[in-house]
């Protein structure tokens, strides 16, 4: 007759003011890094922030933020642990170092389960790190979180932007709010992505140059915030007056 978990999802997100899904048409464009650091930057500005890794088959936020030995608390559902001043939820607490080979129906079920049992309580921002593409996770988030806003990450590559263009078209058709576009890993000057974004009446949040220091900063939040990548993202947040 009915899946009872679906009916409680809105209630679970009732206390969350803004839900932002960080998405892209392609993988490897820096979604998880941007989602993670955006969440940390907002938390350091004094906001109450939640960070939810929805990339179930390839979760990586725990590596980016250097999260170890913390687990959700079980209390009338599950309460995500506090990490770097924010509440962080991931399937990795349960899958550990093992692979999670999930098909679409399993991804949907796991997503519904976590949305139904995770107690975020009061948050100013819930940042969701999406898996790449327009698959089950994206369709489910659109289905279950009606007020979702999408932050799109792309690189200057026409391969990435070609898929982003399709994502923008779909979201526009579905009347889903696109909060902005970030151009990541920029290597030479070009206004193309900015023009294409603004030409579609979408806010261009800014560009972040390819940062050779990024790899060795992974796992250390203070280092990540102190390299050009982190500083630029912090400036973008500041300029947007989030």
């Amino acid at each position, binding site marked *: *007759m009915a899946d*009872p978990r679906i009916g409680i999802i809105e209630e679970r997100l009732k206390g969350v003011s803004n839900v932002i899904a960080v998405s892209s048409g392609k993988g490897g464009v820096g979604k998880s890094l941007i989602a993670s650091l955006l969440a940390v930057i907002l938390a350091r500005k004094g906001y109450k922030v939640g960070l939810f890794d929805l990339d179930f088959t390839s979760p990586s936020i725990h590596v980016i933020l250097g999260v170890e030995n913390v687990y959700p608390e079980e209390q009338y559902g*599950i309460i995500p642990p506090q990490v770097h001043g924010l509440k962080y939820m991931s*399937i990795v607490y*349960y899958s550990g170092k093992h692979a999670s*080979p999930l098909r679409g129906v399993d991804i949907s*079920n796991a997503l519904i389960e976590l949305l139904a049992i995770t107690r975020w309580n009061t948050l100013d921002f819930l940042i969701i790190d999406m898996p790449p593409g327009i698959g089950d996770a994206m369709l489910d988030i659109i289905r279950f979180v009606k007020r979702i806003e999408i932050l799109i990450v792309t690189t200057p590559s026409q391969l990435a932007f070609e898929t982003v263009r399709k994502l923008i078209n779909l979201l526009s058709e579905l009347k889903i709010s696109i909060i902005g576009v970030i151009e990541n890993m920029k290597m030479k000057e070009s206004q193309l992505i900015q023009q294409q974004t603004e030409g579609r009446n979408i806010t261009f949040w800014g560009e972040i140059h390819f940062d050779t220091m990024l790899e060795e900063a992974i796992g250390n939040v203070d280092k990540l915030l102190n390299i050009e990548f982190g500083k630029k993202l912090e400036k973008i947040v500041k300029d947007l007056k989030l």
Partner: protein
Amino acid sequence: MHEWALAEAVISTASQIAEKEGIKEVTEVKIKIGELQQIELDILEFALSQLKTSKFKNAKFNIETTGAELKCRICENKWMFNKEKLDKDTAEAIHFIPEIAHTHIKCPKCGSPDFEILKGRGIWLESIRGEK
């Protein structure tokens, strides 16, 4: 205690259905739970009794448990989930997210993690009855 979140979901969804169907007082709620999620029946029943709203004051919660049947997509072998074969941490992980079964359980015949959960995954609201 995860059962409380599920009980809350049952009450919330049953209320929405009752509202939609014009049921003023619910007399019976049929719930199915699958063994894969290892929901503790006593806790679920207690949570339902504590969380029920006035619309459910005389409602009977009938809970039926079904075994979890798995089918390998590679060799088509079918087998029943058995909690006793799992260590405590794995059983607990599957309790929270039944799909974690794909991380820890393999087909006993061919070793593949690519299996289908044919029945007995989690919680399901089967029907509600009441007076309009």
